């Protein structure tokens, strides 16, 4: 269990968090119309008569959106409801042309499931925790209001109106900002693996409503507030921290927590109450009479299951079984793009442990330095496999390999070509190496004497000098062996 506590004046407080994550379903067309979903189009161009709620328009659901919700449910081992329904949530707002949102209240398509999180993703031995997922349902997104274009008017863009969302509702199982962040990252990772949402929080593909309450350990659940539409993992964690603190202050000052909707202001790092919307809590839900019950058949479900990829937890276990260190396995599987890249590298026949070492240190280091992500890595898995092959067969030393890799990053050339072009091949030519060793020993007679006098640590100095003199191309193993012999021989003689 989390030991996150808020130290108040009256003692310790626990925080209880539940998340409602709205994830845009990856689909070409909208949930109930054929208009496109692409981000960034001109206002009101991706709007059909259906999305604008023209008189007489009717919704017909997009199979792909249903399929993605089902696959997502399967990925968190949730109950899939073969019989579900759409309901109308009625309220008036300028971004909601129908005057209702089509959602699922009474019979969601996905029931209870769970997501396993690690309380310290950097530490493979850290405790894990299972976070319950209450349900996933499918619903329409609303349009967008623009308030800053005109002094007295707001402008309405319906491009997002009717885009499919999954609402993924967690149980109130989260107990700290860190857990909340870990859950959100893990959820995003799963969605990206499944391909049901791109997880792009900047473009609004994923937003979270954060339900927070506090209580003294052992007490009943406190009154919660809901902070709406938080659009980054960092902000979600900040909301948990700030809102819990605020609630403790209110309660300790003798106040009460009002069940209300709040907004997060990242500039001031605080939540504040939204002016409560009149009638906001009487949505008059009822089954949408334009939409019959959604009944999923076994063939549909079988296809959904068969099309699921290997998911992060399973992949991590497989990597560990291949001899990859647990921390590296965690890092390699956190993001689907990295895992796909690494799987391709494994498929090329490299040794798993060495490949994981190289990928997590050399490749990820290089990507970090150059501000790139794995999706646009300049080095393909095939090129990396070639490089690793040259290391494995002794053609390249570790340091030569680094040089070759730098050139590959710059030019995009393959490893063998770089080695060839730049003459960076490692040499194991004993004659050449012995000649250099002899030079080095001659130039450093004093150190040779010291070494022979017992200063063993100077061995590394000789290795370095030899390597340096050979431009890094000497096979270090051969250098070691020959140096030992050369330095030792003289003692014997």
């Amino acid at each position, binding site marked *: 269990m989390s030991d996150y506590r808020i130290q108040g004046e009256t003692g310790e407080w626990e925080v209880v968090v539940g998340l409602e994550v709205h994830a845009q379903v990856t*689909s070409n*067309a909208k949930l109930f119309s*054929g208009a*496109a979903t692409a981000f960034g189009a001109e206002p009101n161009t991706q709007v059909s*008569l259906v999305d604008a709620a023209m008189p007489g328009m009717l919704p017909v659901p997009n*199979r792909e959106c249903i399929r993605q919700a089902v696959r997502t449910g399967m990925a968190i081992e949730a109950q899939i409801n073969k019989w579900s329904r759409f309901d109308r949530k009625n309220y008036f707002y300028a971004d909601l042309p129908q005057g209702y949102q089509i959602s699922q209240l009474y019979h969601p398509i996905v029931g209870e499931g769970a997501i396993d999180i690690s309380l310290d993703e950097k530490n493979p031995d850290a405790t894990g925790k299972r976070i319950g997922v209450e349900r996933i349902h499918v619903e329409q997104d609303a349009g967008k*209001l623009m308030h800053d274009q005109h002094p007295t008017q707001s402008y309405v*863009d319906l491009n997002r109106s009717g885009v499919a969302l999954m609402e993924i509702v967690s149980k109130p199982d989260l107990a700290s900002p860190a857990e909340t962040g870990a859950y959100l990252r893990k959820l995003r990772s799963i969605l990206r693996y499944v391909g049901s949402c791109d997880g792009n929080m900047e473009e609004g593909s994923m937003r979270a409503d954060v339900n927070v309450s506090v209580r003294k350990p052992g007490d009943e659940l406190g009154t919660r507030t809901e902070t709406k539409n938080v659009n980054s993992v960092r902000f979600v964690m900040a909301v948990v921290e700030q809102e819990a603190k605020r609630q403790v202050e209110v309660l300790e000052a003798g106040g009460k927590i009002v069940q209300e909707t709040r907004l997060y202001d990242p500039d001031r790092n605080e939540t504040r109450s939204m002016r409560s919307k009149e009638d906001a809590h009487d949505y008059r839900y009822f089954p949408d009479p334009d939409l*019959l019950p959604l009944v999923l058949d076994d063939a549909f479900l079988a296809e959904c299951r068969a099309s699921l990829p290997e998911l992060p937890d399973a992949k991590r276990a497989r990597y560990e079984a291949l001899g990859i260190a647990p921390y590296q396995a965690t890092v390699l599987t956190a993001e689907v793009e990295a895992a796909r890249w690494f799987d391709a590298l494994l498929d090329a026949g490299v040794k798993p442990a060495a490949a994981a070492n190289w990928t997590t240190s050399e490749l990820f280091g290089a990507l970090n330095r150059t501000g790139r992500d794995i999706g646009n890595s300049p080095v393909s898995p095939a090129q990396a496999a070639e490089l690793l092959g040259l290391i494995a067969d002794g053609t390249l030393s570790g340091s030569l390999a680094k040089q070759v890799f730098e050139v590959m990053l710059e030019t995009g050339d393959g490893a063998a070509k770089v080695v060839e072009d730049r003459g960076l091949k490692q040499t194991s030519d004993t004659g050449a190496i012995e000649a250099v060793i002899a030079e080095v020993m001659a130039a450093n007679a004093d150190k040779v004497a010291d070494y022979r006098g017992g200063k063993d640590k100077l061995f590394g100095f000789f290795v370095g000098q030899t390597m340096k003199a050979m431009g890094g191309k000497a096979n270090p193993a051969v250098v070691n062996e020959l140096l030992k012999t050369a330095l030792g021989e003289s003692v014997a003689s």
Partner: protein
Amino acid sequence: MSVDTATVKRIASLARIAITDEDAARMAPELGNILGWIEMLGEVDTTGVEPMTAVIPNTLRLRDDVVNADPLTGGNIREQVLANAPVAEHGFFAVPKVIE
């Protein structure tokens, strides 16, 4: 069933229909009568009866994920979408400024 004026005003507000006090007062007994009449349904024993979901046995048909497959339900028709708007500017619908 008696419906008071305050209830009428609350319902009118939920339904976004402006209503004067006089109209609310006039409507209260009228709605009361109608609601009283439909309350007769309460006498029907519906234990174990499922609410109607589809009058003719039928389940939801799903469509393929294709953009603009049918022009009648597709996008790229901004002129049509805005054609009947009381106020449309710069490709947007315009409404009185909303303060969030």
